[in-house]
C-alpha cells in the first residue's frame, strides 16, 4: 500500500505495477477456465469476472485517496504520457463503443463507419488546437479556462451549464450500461444493478478524485482491451482467418457482397417491425452515394470530431501530464490505444456477418430451415431474453434475411457463443463491457462534480473556502450527481447511442469555438465568448427539439444526431460578430494568450488556485 503514498517511487514503478496487474488478470482468466472445466456454472463464472474486477478497481480507488487539491483535481500533474494515454482511452471508450459499435457496423454497414472515423480523428483537433495549450494554462477544469481567458463569472457560468448538460446526457447512458451488465452478471434486477454499478463508480472516484480515476482507468483499459481482442482473435483463428483478423478481412468483405446478392439484402424488407430489434437491410459495403447521404456521412464525422475536442472529461485528462510536451505526446498515445479497439470493431462485424450469411459454414443462419436455426444454442438463449426473434413471414419454413431480427449489441455479447468459445470468454466480455462503461462514467461524473465544486462553489459562491471544505463539497456533489444520473438512467429514456451522440452535439455547440478561439484568436473577447456559448447552445437545442419532436424536416439531411453542425455554426458566427462589434480584450489578456502559446515558463494559473 505504501507505494501509493510515496509518489516518486510509485510513478517510477508504474510499468512494473501494471505489468504485474496484467499478469495477474491473465492468471485469473486461466483459473476461471480451469474452474469451468471442473464444472463451475456459467452464471458463477460471470459473477466472478465482474465481481473480481470491481473489487480491484475499488481497491485502487481506496489506495489513491487524497486530501490535496492538486491530487484531487489533476492527479498531482505527474501522470506519464503513455499511462495518461491508456487512462484517456478508457475514459473515452464507453459502453457504447464496447458493446454497440460492432453491432452498429453490422446493421448499418459503411455509413455507420462515420462513427469510427469521427471518434478517432477528433484527437487530431485535440492535439493540434487544444490539449497542449490548456495544459500550459494550468486550469483544473474546462470552465476554469473560459473563466480566466475571457474573465468574469458570466462566461464561467455559461461554460459550466454547457458542460453539465453535455456530460449529464452522456453519463446517464453509461450508468444505464453498468446497470445492464451488473444486473446480468450479478443476477439482480436492473433497478438494483444500476445502484450497484453506481456504487462501484463512486468508490473509484470519490476518495481520490482525479488521481484515483486515473489509476483505475489504466486498470480498466487493460481489462477492456484484453476482453475485446481475445474473443475476436480466437474466433478468427478458429475459423481460419488467421491471427491478425484486422488486416485479413478484405476478402470477407468481398465475399459478403456476393452473399448479399444471393440473400437479397436490401431488396427483401421485413413486412412488420419488431420493437428494439432489426433485420439486416443495408449492404455491408454500401458507401454513401446520393448527395444527402454523403452530407450525412461527413456531417456525422464532423460532429463526433468537434464533440471529441469539446468534451470536458476528455480535455481534463491532459491537465494531468507533467508537461506541455507530455500532453501532446499523450494525445498520440491515447489515439493509438483507442485505435486498437476501433480498427477491430469493423473486423468483428464483418466476421460475424459472414458466419451468419455463408451457407457453407456451420454457423449459418440465413437460408437455413427453422429447425436448423433453432438448434443453435445462442439463438435459443438470446430468444429467451428478447435479443433475437425469427418470424417466418412467408411460411416457407426457411429463414430469409428479412425474417431474422436481432439486437445490434449481440454482435459483441454473443460472439463467443456464436463461435462456440468457452463460457469463460463470455465472462471476460462482460468484465470488459463493465470496465468500459465504468471508466467513462467516472470521468464524466468527475468532470461535472469538479466544474460545480471548483467553478460554481469555490470561484463564484465562496472564494474564501478552505481546502478541506472544497474537497468535501466536491465529494458530496459527486454523490448527488451520481444519484441523479442513476435515477434518470433507471427511467430508460433513450437508447445508448442516441444519448451519446447528443452529448457530442451539445458540447460542440456551446464549447468548441470559445475554446479554440480562446487560444488561436487574440481578438476574441468576453462578450463574443458569451454570445458564442449562449447562442450556439440555444440554436443547437432549438434545432434538436424541432427535428426530433417538433416535426420539422431536417435541413440537407442534418437530423437529430447531427444538430451540433447547426449549433456550432451559430456559435462561430455570433462569437466572431459580437467580438468585432465590442472592444478588443485588454493588454493583460493579450499577454496571457501569448504566454499560453509557448510551452516555456510557469502555468498561467498557480498550482493551488
Amino acid at each position: 500500500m505504501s507505494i501509493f503514498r510515496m509518489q516518486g517511487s510509485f510513478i517510477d514503478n508504474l510499468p512494473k505495477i501494471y505489468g504485474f496487474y496484467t499478469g495477474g488478470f491473465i492468471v485469473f482468466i486461466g483459473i476461471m477456465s480451469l474452474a469451468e472445466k471442473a464444472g463451475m456454472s456459467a452464471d458463477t463464472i460471470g459473477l466472478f469476472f465482474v465481481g473480481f474486477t470491481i473489487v480491484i478497481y475499488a481497491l485502487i480507488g481506496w489506495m489513491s485517496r487524497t486530501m490535496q487539491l492538486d491530487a484531487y483535481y489533476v492527479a498531482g500533474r505527474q501522470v506519464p504520457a503513455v499511462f495518461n494515454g491508456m487512462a484517456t482511452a478508457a475514459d473515452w471508450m464507453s459502453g457504447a463503443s464496447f458493446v454497440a459499435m460492432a453491432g452498429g457496423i453490422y446493421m448499418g454497414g459503411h455509413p455507420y463507419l462515420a462513427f469510427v472515423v469521427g471518434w478517432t480523428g477528433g484527437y487530431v483537433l485535440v492535439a493540434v488546437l487544444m490539449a497542449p495549450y490548456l495544459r500550459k494554462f494550468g486550469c483544473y477544469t474546462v470552465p476554469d479556462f473560459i473563466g480566466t481567458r475571457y474573465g468574469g463569472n458570466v462566461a464561467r457560468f455559461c461554460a459550466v451549464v454547457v458542460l453539465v448538460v453535455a456530460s449529464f446526457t452522456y453519463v446517464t447512458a453509461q450508468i444505464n450500461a453498468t446497470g445492464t451488465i451488473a444486473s446480468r452478471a450479478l443476477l439482480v434486477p436492473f433497478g438494483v444493478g444500476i445502484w450497484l454499478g453506481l456504487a462501484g463508480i463512486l468508490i473509484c472516484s470519490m476518495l481520490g478524485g482525479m488521481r484515483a480515476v486515473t489509476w483505475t482507468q489504466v486498470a480498466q483499459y487493460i481489462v477492456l482491451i484484453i476482453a475485446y481482442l481475445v474473443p475476436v482473435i480466437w474466433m478468427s483463428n478458429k475459423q481460419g482467418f488467421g491471427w491478425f483478423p484486422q488486416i485479413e478481412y478484405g476478402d470477407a468483405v468481398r465475399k459478403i457482397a456476393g452473399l448479399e446478392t444471393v440473400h437479397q439484402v436490401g431488396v427483401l424488407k421485413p413486412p412488420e417491425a419488431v420493437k428494439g430489434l432489426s433485420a439486416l437491410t443495408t449492404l455491408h459495403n454500401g458507401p454513401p452515394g446520393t448527395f444527402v447521404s454523403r452530407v450525412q456521412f461527413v456531417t456525422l464525422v464532423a460532429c463526433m470530431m468537434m464533440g471529441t475536442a469539446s468534451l470536458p472529461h476528455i480535455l481534463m485528462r491532459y491537465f494531468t501530464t507533467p508537461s506541455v510536451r507530455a500532453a501532446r505526446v499523450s494525445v498520440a498515445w491515447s489515439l493509438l490505444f483507442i485505435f486498437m479497439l476501433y480498427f477491430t470493431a469493423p473486423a468483428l462485424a464483418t466476421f460475424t456477418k459472414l458466419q451468419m450469411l455463408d451457407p457453407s459454414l456451420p454457423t449459418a443462419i440465413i437460408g437455413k430451415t427453422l429447425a436448423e436455426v433453432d438448434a443453435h444454442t445462442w439463438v435459443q438463449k438470446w430468444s429467451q431474453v428478447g435479443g433475437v426473434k425469427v418470424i417466418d413471414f412467408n411460411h416457407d419454413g426457411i429463414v430469409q434475411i428479412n425474417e431474422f431480427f436481432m439486437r445490434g449489441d449481440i454482435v459483441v455479447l454473443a460472439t463467443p457463443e456464436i463461435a462456440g468459445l468457452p463460457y469463460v470468454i463470455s465472462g471476460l466480455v462482460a468484465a470488459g463491457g463493465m470496465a468500459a462503461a465504468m471508466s467513462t462514467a467516472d470521468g464524466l461524473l468527475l468532470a461535472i462534480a469538479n466544474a460545480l465544486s471548483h467553478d460554481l462553489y469555490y470561484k463564484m459562491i465562496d472564494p474564501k473556502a478552505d481546502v478541506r471544505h472544497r474537497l468535501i463539497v466536491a465529494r458530496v456533489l459527486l454523490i448527488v450527481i451520481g444519484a441523479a444520473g442513476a435515477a434518470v438512467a433507471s427511467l430508460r429514456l433513450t437508447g445508448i447511442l442516441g444519448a451519446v451522440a447528443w452529448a457530442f452535439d451539445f458540447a460542440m455547440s456551446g464549447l468548441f469555438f470559445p475554446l479554440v478561439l480562446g487560444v488561436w484568436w487574440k481578438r476574441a473577447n468576453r462578450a463574443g465568448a458569451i454570445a458564442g456559448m449562449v447562442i450556439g447552445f440555444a440554436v443547437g437545442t432549438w434545432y434538436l427539439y424541432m427535428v426530433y419532436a417538433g416535426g420539422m424536416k431536417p435541413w440537407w439531411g442534418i437530423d437529430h444526431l447531427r444538430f451540433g453542425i447547426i449549433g456550432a455554426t451559430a456559435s462561430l458566427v455570433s462569437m466572431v460578430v459580437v467580438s468585432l462589434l465590442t472592444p478588443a480584450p485588454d493588454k493583460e489578456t493579450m499577454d496571457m494568450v501569448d504566454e499560453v502559446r509557448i510551452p516555456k515558463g510557469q502555468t498561467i494559473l498557480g498550482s493551488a488556485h
Partner: protein
Amino acid sequence: MAADNSQKEIHWNRTRNLMIVHLAIWFVFSFVVHWFAIALNKFSFMHFPLGFYMAAQGSLIVFVVQLFAFAWQQNKIDQETGMAEEE
C-alpha cells in the same frame, strides 16, 4: 525583451503553419476521401475495396501516425526557438 518577442513571433508563425499542414491532412482523411468512397471502391488495397478500407482503417492509421509526427515536429519547433520547457 525585443529579441525574446521576435523569437516568440517566429515560434508562433511556425506553430501556426504546422497547425495548418496537419489540419489539411486531417481534412482530407476525415472528409474528402469518404466523400469519394464509391470511386475509391474501384481500387483494391490488401484485398479490401479501398473506399471501405479508408473508413474502417486507413484514415485511422493516418491519424495515429500524424499525431506522433505532430508531437515530434512541434517539440522541434519549441526547442529551436528556445520556447521549450526546461526539463
